[in-house]
């Protein structure tokens, strides 16, 4: 009831977000005026089955209901390389540095052609995964952390990053309930942790979780316990975003 009332009030009194303090994580991109980026960038991270897409769909509805324009981005959605990247993954023929750079290209293309223009126009940009998943994947595969950080130094720091944390055991259940199968890459089969996919999935997701929590110390994103109901998780996200908009 309370939220319905708030919603009604918002129809007449739409919050104009305050300007963010913006920075790139590293060297950044040539020629970008940070002060012109008036929108907000919100990233949602988490494994497949953590409820990312559900949460993003709901956030979009809520934000639009409150009068904010939104744009969505995500991994492997660039015009430039998404097709080739998919093809390469199916054949599993790329080595790890190559995959990593290919994903970085995909990210950079969306950053420059979607994220930045949308932020310039004052949109709320919702990223269904951002650089952290990519960095964590690379680090789990033993790549040099300094190299990965330099590479993603082109990235803009988001206004909020949520990591939907679900235990590997629960992820297995959710993936089976949804697809009755585990994904090759989400099981980290390329790492040779185990020839048994179930086993490999658990080990791989545990490694990912560990690296995510390690990165959290540097990047300070908010870890959300996503074992809770979708409603409860969404409540957490909305509260955080709300305070971000009026800040």
């Amino acid at each position, binding site marked *: 009831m309370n939220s319905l009332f708030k919603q009604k009030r918002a129809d007449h009194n739409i919050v104009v977000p305050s300007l963010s303090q913006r920075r790139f994580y*590293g*060297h*950044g*991109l*040539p*020629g970008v005026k940070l002060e012109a980026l008036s929108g907000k960038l919100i990233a949602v991270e988490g494994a497949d089955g953590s409820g990312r897409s559900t949460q993003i769909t709901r956030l979009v509805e809520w934000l639009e209901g409150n009068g904010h324009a939104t744009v969505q981005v995500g991994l492997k959605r660039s*015009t*430039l*390389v998404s*097709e*080739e990247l998919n*093809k*390469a993954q199916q054949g599993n*023929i*790329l*080595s*790890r*540095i*190559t995959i*990593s*750079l*290919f994903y*970085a*290209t995909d990210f*950079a*293309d969306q950053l*420059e*052609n979607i994220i930045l223009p949308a932020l310039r126009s004052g949109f709320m940009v919702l990223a269904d995964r951002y650089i952290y998943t990519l960095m964590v994947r690379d680090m789990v595969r033993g790549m*040099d952390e*300094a*190299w990965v950080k*330099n*590479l993603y*130094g*082109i990235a803009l720091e988001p206004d909020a990053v949520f990591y939907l944390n679900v235990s590997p055991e629960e992820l297995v259940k959710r993936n089976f309930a949804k697809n009755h199968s585990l994904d090759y890459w989400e099981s980290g089969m390329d790492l040779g942790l185990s020839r048994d996919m179930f086993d490999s999935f658990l080990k791989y997701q545990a490694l990912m979780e560990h690296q995510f929590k390690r990165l959290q110390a540097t990047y300070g994103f908010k870890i959300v316990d996503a074992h809770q109901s979708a409603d409860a998780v969404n409540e957490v996200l909305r509260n955080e975003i709300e305070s971000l908009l009026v800040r």
Partner: protein
Amino acid sequence: MLIGQNTFAELGFPGRLIAVEGLDGSGKSTQIYLLKRWLELEGARVFFSEWNSSELVKSATSKGKKRELLTPTTFSLIHATDFADRYERQLVPLLRAGYIVLCDRYVYTAFARDVVRGCPSKWVRGNYNFACLPDLTFFFNAGLEVSLRRILDNRPELKYFEAGMDLKLSTDPYESFRIFQGRILEQYLAMSTEFNFVVVDANQPVETQQSIVRQIVGSRIDVSKYLAVKY
């Protein structure tokens, strides 16, 4: 020992990598072709690799170029992806197997071009620091005017990125190409000492240059150690 700061020989690879660098029209491709023929005829195990030639990445690169989708950052990253694919799947295994690998352009091409396009030098170099340095790098210096004449005399159809049109240096592709190449040359010359380029005066006849190249390769690399096994 850091990979991006040492040569293959310094890191204990049995093989050797020789790279050629220079502006378009400097004659470097001709010279590396003749070097390859010489080594092959001497009976050595040789492999040749060219910039921007990985099958898989090529379709993305050509799409990006055709539709002018590339920014300096994605231009840099997609070429790094191409390089990484060749590096991991061909160059490293062959160098471990004791081949002489010849590269028409190596990381220095990216160091020069991407920086001219406005990417931070440290970022570009950092991205490529998974790659060992060549054991020998020839830089073919034909001077700007000669290189330009060799390319422009045929009035070729200059492609958008090739001419550096994305930098908006000039609306005339030929003028843009001149300015762009001039800036790349400056970058090459600045790197020459840092990376121990063997600078070859590319205004000399093809044969004169090739005899210098063969002489230097012969003095730095014991080709007899790289002979292919006859079956």
